Each structure stands twice: as structure tokens, then as C-alpha cells.
């Protein structure tokens, strides 16, 4: 077993265990912290795949921004001590069915798909990624920015003081 495979195994176990802890642990702040661990593991996978930009973006966006917002949200809405919450919400059956179906779909694609494997390391993934975003994938890119703008405007509208 090469070091590469060992790293993959360690990261995989880390991701799975921490993801499991996120949905089973009773303390919401602990769940958020396990989520960070899970995201960090995914970033590690990207590093293994030599997609450094993706790895760094994963840390920047998911760990640095989204989890901070989640923690911020938890602390603003829950009591200070956090307290024990029921770990599974009432819709867990439907959610489980959806997630299970998605897992089956993923497994099907992974098993039957024709995967192209390249031996050469990518030249400069950042440049390629940037060019692809403004040429081939310009429509989804612009759509995503419009969605984000709409969310921003919506947040301002919700938070606005109506009495003024």
C-alpha cells in the first residue's frame, strides 16, 4: 500500500466518521465542529487529487465562511449552553430515503461510468479553471451570481426595520 492510498484511507475514515458524528451528536455546536473536520477531510482529498485551488477554496468557503456563519447562527438562536437537542428531526424518514436514493445513484454512476485516468499532473489548474468559468461555463457562473445577489437582496428585505 502506497503512502497515497494510506492517506486516502485515513481521509476517507475521517470524513465518514465525522459526517456520522454531525448527524448523531446531541450538541449543535459539537455537530458544527465535526462538520469542520468533515470539510477539512474533503479538502485533503482535493489535495490528494492535485486540485490545490479546489482544496483551498473548500477551506476558505466551507470552513472559513459557512461554518462560521453556522456557529454564529447557533449561538444567536439557542440558549448559551447549547443544550441537548433531539439528534434526528421529525422528517428523518423522508430525508433518509432521499439520501439513500442519491447514494444508490452515485454508486450506479461510479460503478458503470467510463472513467478517464490521466497519468500527467494538471498543468495549472487555477488558470484552466478560471478560463473555463468565463468561457464554457459562463452561463452557470453568471446564474450562480444572480442567485447570490437575489439572496443578498432577500436578506436585506427580511432584516429591514418595517417601522421606519
Amino acid at each position, binding site marked *: 500500500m502506497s503512502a497515497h492510498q494510506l492517506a486516502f484511507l485515513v481521509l476517507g475514515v475521517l470524513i465518514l466518521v465525522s459526517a456520522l458524528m454531525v448527524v448523531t451528536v446531541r450538541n449543535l*455546536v459539537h455537530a458544527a465542529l465535526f462538520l469542520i473536520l468533515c470539510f477539512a477531510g474533503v479538502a485533503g482529498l482535493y489535495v490528494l487529487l492535485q486540485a490545490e485551488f479546489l482544496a483551498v477554496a473548500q*477551506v*476558505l468557503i466551507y470552513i*472559513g465562511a459557512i461554518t462560521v456563519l453556522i456557529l454564529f447562527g447557533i449561538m444567536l438562536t439557542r440558549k448559551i449552553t*447549547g443544550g441537548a437537542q433531539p439528534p434526528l428531526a421529525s422528517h428523518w424518514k423522508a430525508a433518509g430515503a432521499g439520501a439513500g436514493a442519491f447514494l444508490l445513484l452515485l454508486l450506479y454512476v461510479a460503478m458503470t461510468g467510463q472513467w478517464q485516468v490521466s497519468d500527467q499532473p494538471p498543468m495549472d489548474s*487555477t488558470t484552466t479553471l478560471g478560463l473555463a468559468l468565463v468561457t464554457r461555463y459562463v452561463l452557470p457562473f453568471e446564474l450562480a451570481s444572480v442567485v447570490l445577489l437575489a439572496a443578498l437582496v432577500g436578506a436585506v428585505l427580511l432584516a429591514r426595520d418595517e417601522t421606519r
Partner: protein
Amino acid sequence: MNLPITLTGIVEGALAPLGLQGLTPLVVYLLDALIILLLLIMPVVTILIWLLRKMLGFIQRRLGPMRVGPFGVLQTIADAVKLFHKEDLFPANADRVVFALAPFLVFVPAVLVYVVIPFGQGDGFVTKDLSVGLVYLTAVTSISAIGIITAGWSSDNKWSLLGGLRSAAQLVSYELPMTLALLGPPLMAGTLSLSGIVAAQQSVWFVVPQALGFLIYFIAALAEIAHLPFDLPEAESELVAGYNVEYSGMRFGLFFLGEFANSFTICLVATVLFLGGWHLPFLGGLPLTSWQTGLATVATMALLGGGIWYLNWRRAGWTSATRWHWLGYVSAAILAAIVLVAGLVGFISVVITLVKTSLLVFVLMWLRGTLPRVRVDQLMSFGWKALVPLGLVNFLALAFQAATGIPTGWVLNLLFFVFVGWLLLFAWRKRWAYSAVS
């Protein structure tokens, strides 16, 4: 004369007889980490804390630490020893695991940043020159917010929690203008690698066309590290000490170390991105091996050292200054000899980078000694209504220039002066807050 001694070479030479060449990269990275931690962060932080206390003393017309060692230089070490001896307290209702973990979440990112920072010219002075260095930098610095929030929450103390919440809001708000300002240098250099950005500043430092971006970055970075005037997360007079109020011993020490490492980091990043890194002013074309460059470096350092010594003499008088000033001369002479005789390329470039960084650190301490703390509403409105629009304009103008070739630098520099004028006007109107209460 460029000596071919690199860490990789030494390690490989040592491991080859044992038949362990395969481990070279791993050992080199471990050694790099140790070097950064033990030879850079610890001494720098130790010196910075002492310097800060001396500077604040100077500003407040007192001597600062004087007891331990000459001019009190060993005071920080004494404090560190004291911290190690203190009891590691846990509050009764604290979330023990999270409470124990939080200081590391603040300290480790503060150290991780140094992986990509080029201290000098050449591969020997950067641990790993990532092609996405700048994004890595922003990503890693953003992790420490989690440490601060969880520290505040796990202490089960209302002041800690308030400090943590304030810090979360502040970090999220000021990350935006900081990132917008950071977009300037890579846009002009055409690369995200920090070494590449420094290399692109050979003729003109980016602070000249990007004065606005530099100012936005510096202000936003001050808020990111919770430095005065934006130290609301740990406002002593409002929250006791904010998120770290329940911490004691070395866990508190880790927060402290992280904080000072961060203030050194933002100055280092500003140097690398905007102040030309290892390039000398007006001498960018000269090769760093030439004796002129060495002489210019030594002269600059002598000027700086002499200035600082003069200030100290003015402050403390001959009685305390004369006894130890020969130490300064001797060290300066040794340094000059090394620079001139050996002419090591990297060494000179590291010295230049560190001198520039120290000047920025001086500005930081100066601000800390002079500015009052802003209010929460002022903090938010300044971030969102002043810095974010300015950052957007700055970025859009640069992108416009890059796309069309029409120069937009004069617009940005005009904006810079308007912004500085507005800040000065604000300070003038609030001058009662800056005057000493006596």
C-alpha cells in the same frame, strides 16, 4: 556568490547513507515547520511583545519594562515562564473538550500561514511556493475565527460569549473588503503565487498604483486580527477580556502568541503584496548580489537603528542608554560584515523584507498607543459603507484596466487621497477623543 547550501541538500546528504532518501521531503517539511516555529515565530513574538510594551511606554511617557535584563528585554521570557507555571483552569460549566481545543484553532492557522510566505529571493526562503498561495493565505487565516467563537462559547461566560459573537460578526464583515483589496496585486502580477507577485514588483511596488488597495487591506486586516481601533472582541473595558477571559496559563498564552503572530503576519503580507517584498526602493533593477545593494541595506538599517536609538536616548537619557548602546553597534557591525563579505543573495533579501515588515509593525503599535476603540455600529457602518464600496471600485477599475488597457490608476489614487482626507477630517472632528485626559 550564491552558496549551494539548501535544507533539502543537507537532509538528502544525511539520509542517503542510511538508504532513506524517500523520506527527504517529509523530513524537510518537518524541519521547515520546526524552523518556522522555533526560529521565527517564537523569537519574533517575544521581541514584538517587549517592543510593544516599550513603545506604549514611550507614547504614554513612561519607561515600560526595565527590570529583567537590559532595558527589560528579558521581560517577555520571564512572563512566558510564569505562564507555564500557572494552573490550567477549567470553568465549572465549560465544555471541556471544546474549551481545550479552541486555543489551538487560533494558534495553528497563525503558524500555517508562514508556509507560503517568501521571506527572501530564491526557493530556500519559502517553505512551499504554492501556485495558489494568496488564496491559501486567505483560507488559512479565516480558520482562526472558529477558534475565537468556540473559545467564547465553551467558556460558559456571558462576556466570553459576547466577545466571541462580536468577533464572528467583525471577522465575517471585514473579510470581504480585505479579500477585495487582496485581488489587486494578483491582477497586476498575473499570478497567485506570492513569490511571483514579489518578482512582478521589481520596477514599481504595487503600493504606488494600489495605494487605495493597500490602505483598504491594512484597515481591514487590523479588524481581522482585532487590533485597535477594532479590538471590540476583547475590549478590556467592556468585556473584561472578551473571548479569552476564562483562559489561564499556557492556553491563554497560545491566544496571546497567535495574536502577536497574526499582527506580524499582516505586516509581512502587506510587505510582500504591496511594498515590494525584497526589492529596495529605486534600486529594483540592481541584482541583489551587488555590493551597492548590500551597502544600501546596511545604510537603511543603520539609519533605522540610529533613529530608534536616538528616540530611546531622548526618552531615557544617557544614564540608561549609554550603558548598553555598544550592543547595538556590535550587532550592526556583525550584520554589516556578513552582508558585505558573504554577499549572500538570500540573506540581504530576507533582511530587506523584515525591515519593511518591522516598519509596518511600528505603525501598528503606534496606532495601538493613540487610537480609541470604535463602537459596534461605527465598526459595521465603516466596513460596509466605506471599505466594501471602495474595495469594489478598486477591483472594478483594475479589472477594467486589465481588460481594455485604459489606465485607471489616477482615478484610484485620487480616491485614495479623498479617502485619507475623509479619515483625517473624521479624526479632526473627533479630536476630543484623542486628546489626553489630564
